[in-house]
Every structure is written in C-alpha cells, then in structure tokens.
C-alpha cells in the first residue's frame, strides 16, 4: 500500500512538473507555487561562510541621548573656541553669545551622558581613573574640564560686564576661556575617535573620515547657532559656506568610494538618513546662503538646515554602526584583506 501511495504521489508530482514546464515554455514565467520536494529544505552551503549569517559583533547599546550629546558637545566645544578668537579680536557681543552657547551645551551634555548610564551616580565611576588609552575616559574628563572652564568663563564675563570686576577677574576669564577653547576642541573631536577605535567595521574603517564629519558639523552648527542669535555677519557666512562645501565633499566621497564596508552608509534606511543629512547641511544650506544676499530670513533657513543636517548625520552614523555590526562578512572581509597584506610583506 505504501509503495502504491508513493508511486501515485510521484506520478502526480511528475505530471505537475510537466504542466509547469509547459506553462514556463509557453508564457515565459511560472505563476503557481510549484511543488515541495519531500525531505526539503535541503541543507545548502552558504554563499560566504559564517555561523548562520548571525552577527559576530554586538551592536552599540547607546540610547538616543548619545548621538544628541555628540552633537551638543561638538557645538559647545567649537563655540568656546569661537569665543576665544572673538575675544582676541575684540568682538564683545559675539564673544558673550558664543560663551553662552558653550555653557548651555555643557549644561545639556552631562545629563544626556548620564541618562544613557541609567543611574546618575554611576557617572562618578568615570572619574575614579584616567585612561589615556580609552577615548571614553578621555571624553569624560574632557567634558568635566570643559564644563568647569566654560562655566567659570561665563560667570567672569557676566560679572565684568556688570562692572564689578577687576584686573584679576579679567585674568581668570582669559585663563578660563583658553582652557575652555582647548578642552572644547578636544570635546568636539574625541567623539570621532570614540567611534573610530572600536571593532565596528564601518566606524573603524572610516576612522579618518568621521573626524571630518563631526568637526564640520560642529563648526557649521556653532556658526549657524550664532546666526540664529542675530549675528548674521560675513564671518559666520564664511564659516557656513566652508562647512557646507566640506559636507558636499564628504558626501561625494562616501558615494564614490565603492567599499563593501561602507554599505550601511549608502543602503537602506540608514543610507537615506546619511543622504538626507548631507543634502540639508551640504547643497541646501550652501544654495540658501549664496542666494541669501539681503534676506536675513534665507540666512536663518540655511542655518536651520545645516543644524538639522549635522544632527541627522550624528544619528545616522550611530545607526550605521548598528547595521554594520550585524554583517559578519564586513568584518571577515577586512580581516582576510589585512591577513593577505601581512602575508605579502
């Protein structure tokens, strides 16, 4: 009985196959589901070896506060540098605004970082050691130093402005501003090292590009923030134009370089997020600036576009790391290439 049943099933299967072949020959395509062979699915060799295509690496655990902190910290840091330069040049109003942007950014940064840790008290563990080899440790100390310095500079500046200061207070303000500018530039740049020195392929392989992305975003956004506070002057316009041009160059570089490891930057939702960020901060902001002429409104829109683009870019780069961590082949490919290079030398 079993044999008869099997034969009957085979005949049905064979005739079904014939019908499918005929349909395929006649119409050039098969619309029906076809047949399911007994014993299927058969094990097949994977196109490229990995453990069932599972990720080798862990995705970043950082919450949304971290990319926002990257942005805010970057803007605050560059603003402190702008404050120092404008102080040297004697632009008092600009200096005051830049100092306040730096101080506001510093006030926002620590809570954002601490929120990611879950329990606020845990942040103190960052300050029990200083490890020059850990970008995270360097960053925690830099943020602490920057916040203190920029806070002191703002207090000194306001007291002097109110007419209560003396020469000694002015000296303290200068020292605080210099320290804030130095730590501020480290604050704006260390976040790119934080990504570059990891095992995540798309971050690690772009360790020379991420600094340019982050610093351009911070520089352009700091100038844009000043413009939104009313400083629509040639200097902020020039910084804005330079930043937008660099954004365009970076976007072209990402598109033109045909590297497997860069696929998260070009493909899928994250790829489009990168492109939207670049389009806003690059060509959109640039064109608005060029045509702003006598229209302050266009300058404001350009500034807003740049800030939005730079902010989106931070989120997109973190998200790209998440995508990259899921692809075992991105990791294996780099390592095979490195091994060949070592073997050749």
């Amino acid at each position, binding site marked *: 009985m079993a044999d008869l049943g099997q034969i009957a099933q085979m005949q049905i299967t064979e005739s079904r196959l014939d019908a499918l072949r005929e349909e395929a020959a006649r119409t050039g395509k098969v619309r029906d589901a076809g047949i399911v062979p007994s014993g299927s699915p058969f094990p097949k060799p994977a196109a490229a*070896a990995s453990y069932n295509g599972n990720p080798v690496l862990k995705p970043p655990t950082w919450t949304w506060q971290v990319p926002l902190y990257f942005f805010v910290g970057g803007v605050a840091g560059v603003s402190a540098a702008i404050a120092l330069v404008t102080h040297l040049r004697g632009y008092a109003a600009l200096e005051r605004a830049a100092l306040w942007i730096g101080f506001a950014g510093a006030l926002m940064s620590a809570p954002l970082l601490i929120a990611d840790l879950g329990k606020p008290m845990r942040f103190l563990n960052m300050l029990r050691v200083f490890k020059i080899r850990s970008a995270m440790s360097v960053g925690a100390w830099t943020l602490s130093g920057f916040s203190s310095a920029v806070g002191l500079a703002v207090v000194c500046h306001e007291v002097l402005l109110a007419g209560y200061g003396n020469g000694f207070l002015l000296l303290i303000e200068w020292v605080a501003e210099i320290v804030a500018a130095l730590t501020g530039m480290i604050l704006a740049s260390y976040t790119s090292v934080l990504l570059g020195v990891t095992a995540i392929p798309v971050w690690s392989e772009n360790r020379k590009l991420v600094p340019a992305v982050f610093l351009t975003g911070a520089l352009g956004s700091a100038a844009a923030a000043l413009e939104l506070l009313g400083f629509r002057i040639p200097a902020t316009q020039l910084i804005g134009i330079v930043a937008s041009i660099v954004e365009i160059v970076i976007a072209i570089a990402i598109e033109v370089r045909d590297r497997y490891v860069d696929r998260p930057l070009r493909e899928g939702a994250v790829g489009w997020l990168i492109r939207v960020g670049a389009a806003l901060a690059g060509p959109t902001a640039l064109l608005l600036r060029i045509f702003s002429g006598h229209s302050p409104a266009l300058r404001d829109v350009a500034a807003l576009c740049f800030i939005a683009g730079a902010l989106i870019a931070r989120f997109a780069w973190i998200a790209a790391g998440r995508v990259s961590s899921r692809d075992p082949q991105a990791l294996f490919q780099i*390592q095979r290439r490195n091994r060949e290079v070592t073997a050749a030398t």
Partner: protein
Amino acid sequence: MTVSAFLTDATLCIGCKACEVACKEWNHVPADGFNFTGNSYDNTNALGASTWRHVMFLEQPTTLGPQIAGTEDPFRWLFLSDVCKHCGNAGCLEACPTGAIIRTELETVYVQPDVCNGCGYCVVSCPFGVVDKNHDVGTAFKCTFCYDRQLEGLKPACAKACPTESIRFGELEELRAHGRLRVQELQRRGYKDAQVYNPQETSVAGVHAMFVILGEPEAYNLPPAPEVPIVHMKSAWTTALLSALVAVMVVCLAFVL
C-alpha cells in the same frame, strides 16, 4: 604563576549544553527566554550578557573526516561551545573608562560588577562580540572564567560539567601543546580540516580560550584575524586633532578677514 586557559574541542562536543546550564547555575546568570531560532538546536545564536557559554550547532553539506558517505548529499553536524576568549590583549579591557575590567592574577579578563557603570564602550570594542550590557541591570556582563571557583582551586563550572572533556581547563602552555597534539591525531585519523583556533599573529596576541575546530573559523563566527581596536588609536587621534586644528584655522580666518 599559572595562566588559566580553556581548550574547547568541536570534535568531542556532543551538544548537550551541560556547560551552559552549569554556568548559569553557578554564576546565577539570568535565563535567556524560550526562543526558537530555527538554527538547528541553537536557542541563543550568540554569546551575550546572559549567555556566557554558547553551544553552536553547525549543519554543513560536507563529510565528517574519514566518513564514507553513501549518499549524494553529504552532511555533518558539528557542535562547539563558544566562550569569552580572554584575549592576550583585550579590546574590552583597553576601552573600559572606569577600570572595571581588569586582568586578574590568573591572566583572565574580569568585569568587576560593582565598578562597571554601563557606558557600553566595551561592547563595541570586543572584536569577538562577547561582552554585552544587561539592560535590566544596566551594566556589562561576560564570562568570569569562574574567578571565584579558580581562587578556591576548583575548575570552572562549564569544564567541570562537560561530560566528554570537550572543554578542557588547564595551564595555557600545556593546553597549547595539547591542542597541537590533538590536531595531529585528528589529521592522522582523516580529519584533514582540523585546526586550532588561536590568533597569535594578530594584535589580540592569542586567546586564553582556544578551540579545536573542523573547517574554517568563519563558519563558527570566529574572526579569522581579530584586531584589538586600540591599534587604530594613533591614526584616529591624529586625524581628529588635525581636523580640529583646521576647524580653528577656519574660525581664525573668518574673524580676521
């Protein structure tokens, strides 16, 4: 001073997961949940904050060693118990900003749970994707190499529970020698693709949890040439500080003009 090590042998593993259970029992590691992955008998797919031993199940269309296949579809089923590699140069340890991750006197890599602050930087710095953040507790967890048991002269729980001695625990140099002998023996018996996984030529500088595997390491999600991320620190900082310098120059230029 002894250097503790594991040698985990895929050719001896029977996929019983006693190591996973013993590890959870001894270390009070939380459950992973009842997940059906569809990947053979694997329930977790990877190591993680609550999976410190992970038994892999590999279904491959190849013959096993000297096996004579009487079928057109050759097939072999391999098992391997994965674990934290306790690297010679550990990416997690270098990245940790609090000093929570330390090198113990046994040369193992240990996360001090009361010092870890959950920054998550070790998670992205591990070239093997081992350490992860437990989102209920908010801090990082991984294999402790049963530091507490070792201090009392006991074997790690997984090695103790392993019924086939697939998980060997011992001194690093002894196990390296044992691994070499084991591979020679396997090759003589016809397992031509047997090899020891221990990336000594890379910046990781060898692992303290070695493996005897059949076939390429990639099939076990073991990176063929893992690197400690810290090797890129100099180039990353150089570019970052140069970029910062250029940014400052643009500011100066803008306000001087």
